[in-house]
């Protein structure tokens, strides 16, 4: 556990609490093409390899053979005129987990093409309706208030 402090007094002094660990692991799609037995995770920056291994093996029952790690530097924001660094974003810790016993994992396709196309069609329809509405408005304006600027309205 990352924190050892006892939690502060809260209003009403609730006795029954569930203490969840501060650690978290986020399963992500890898940037590079990689073999199927390797899985990528973004993890809490204070988490060690051993923590990750124990977390996967004891809670989820996934056997881990090896882990390699990479820390990606956060972006620097520079001053537009003077050029010095004004702000730097947080680093991200990435664990590449090698599964044991010839296990494989493929990251699921979260945005498949069928759903994508349907949503794009909806957007197109909506934009067409909007265009039509604008046209209608213009036509009405020309008919009933010819030669009057657009801001002139009640």
């Amino acid at each position, binding site marked *: 556990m990352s924190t050892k402090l006892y939690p502060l007094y809260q209003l009403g002094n609730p006795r029954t609490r569930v203490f969840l660990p501060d650690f978290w692991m986020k399963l992500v799609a890898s940037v590079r093409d990689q073999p199927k037995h390797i899985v990528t995770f973004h993890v809490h920056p204070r988490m060690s390899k051993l923590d990750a291994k124990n977390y996967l093996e004891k809670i989820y029952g996934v056997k881990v*053979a090896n882990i390699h790690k990479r820390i990606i530097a956060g972006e620097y924001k520079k001053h537009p005129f003077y050029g010095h660094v004004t702000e730097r974003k947080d680093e991200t810790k990435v664990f590449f987990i*090698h599964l*044991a*016993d010839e296990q494989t994992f493929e990251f699921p396709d979260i945005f498949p093409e069928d759903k994508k196309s349907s949503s794009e069609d909806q957007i197109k329809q909506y934009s067409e309706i909007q265009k039509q509405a604008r046209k209608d408005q213009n036509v009405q304006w020309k008919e009933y208030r010819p030669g009057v600027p657009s801001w002139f309205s009640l």
Partner: protein
Amino acid sequence: MAAPTQTMSKVFFTNISKILLRRDVFRHVRVQYLRTSERSEIAQESEYTDEPQYPSLEPVLLNTKDPAHVAYQQKLWIDQLRGKPTVQDKLDFIRWRPKDAWREIRPKMKDQRAPEVWKHCPYLFRLHPINRVVNFLPYQQYITRTTLVNRLPELYNSMDVEPQVEQIKTLFKEALITEELRYRHDARLAAQKPGAVTCSVLDQLVGLVMQACGSKHDHLLTAKVDNETRQEAFWFVGGFPKREEKGGHLQTKYGMAFQYKAKPWYLIRTRDALPQIVSRDDTLSTEAEVPECKYHPVAVGMTFYRDEFSMVPGFKDGDTNAFGLVQFHECCEQTRDLTERFGAKEVEKLWLGHGIISSFSWLLSQAFYQGFDHFNDITYPLITQSVITNGQYWQFFTYQLNSTQASTYGTSYYRNICWAGERMKLYDCIEDDQVKGFNDDVLRWCLKFMLREPLLRNIERNPYISTSQTGETH
């Protein structure tokens, strides 16, 4: 006034486009005219010859990204590399920096710790004999372009080594017991190195074989035996997919660079090369399967560093014994805790990978010291034999290097071949001053490997090295 300017510009551009078109047609040809004095000399000497002599054709530098032009430049570079007289010159040519400059920088860098010096060095991916990577065997096969055959070649069956086995067997057993007990009773000795027992057992084995058979076999009489020498090689692999996001691809201009470094316990070298096991036109060396793993080495789990390339086959340039017969590797330290982490199945695969990588890189460095390189292919196949031991377990490999070009540009279609025997147990245990469950086959294979005679003598060994520099021709 507007109309005439338009017409003028039209005329101008049409003419220009015509000229450009003509230039485009003859883009790849530039005729080198001779000066008048030269022309007259030629005319005086010989106006007509039997074979017409034309000046060389060169593509003109109009479009540098034209694939034909790039190929032509590469060909020029490779010809230039082939023309280099010595091995050191070739190495310096591939490292795109003069060596003296590096010498000047190196001591400074150590004192001042200036990291900006390293930006001139190439990115290298380090290959150990055993990399701690899961499921690494297909990747090792891909980057060396080897096919794996799960048995040793049949040519060893005809060899008869029974008398030698009986001669050595009892002595070897005694040596095993003494070495084991020596290290068991002296904890300080054993703590020096994890694989110390197996190393001293290998000492005893090689010594016994050389004593027993050295006088009868000429190749062993003249052989050189090296203990714990450097064995280093580098090569390039191309064709990895590039990442779309920004960030380094970590590539040199020849491709992804791999650097192997190891220190095997014994290298035995002979004057002549071993004869080929399979011809290069055989289906095994042309059409056999090689797994395709086009993954970036970072994605697989390898680490990179920056340094110069190094190519060391265990001897210096100009050595008389330049061909490897057998190499003995000890892998106690590297595989100590691997069975717990990876499992027994994975460790067996890692042993196979050990055999492939170590023998490929040793042969590659040998070929380099004969004047061949990654771009100018070898003219005859090179063969070596390797033994990997854990003390208790032994595994035997033979390897045939069909081409050094195999892993660079894919121009050559040859595959390298690795024959791997089964992993054998030498003994069950050593108790009460006795070896229990001793296996003769291990000794038999060791003798077969060491007594195999190299017979390749009537060949041009180093066609790309000038003989005046090395001073040795056989």
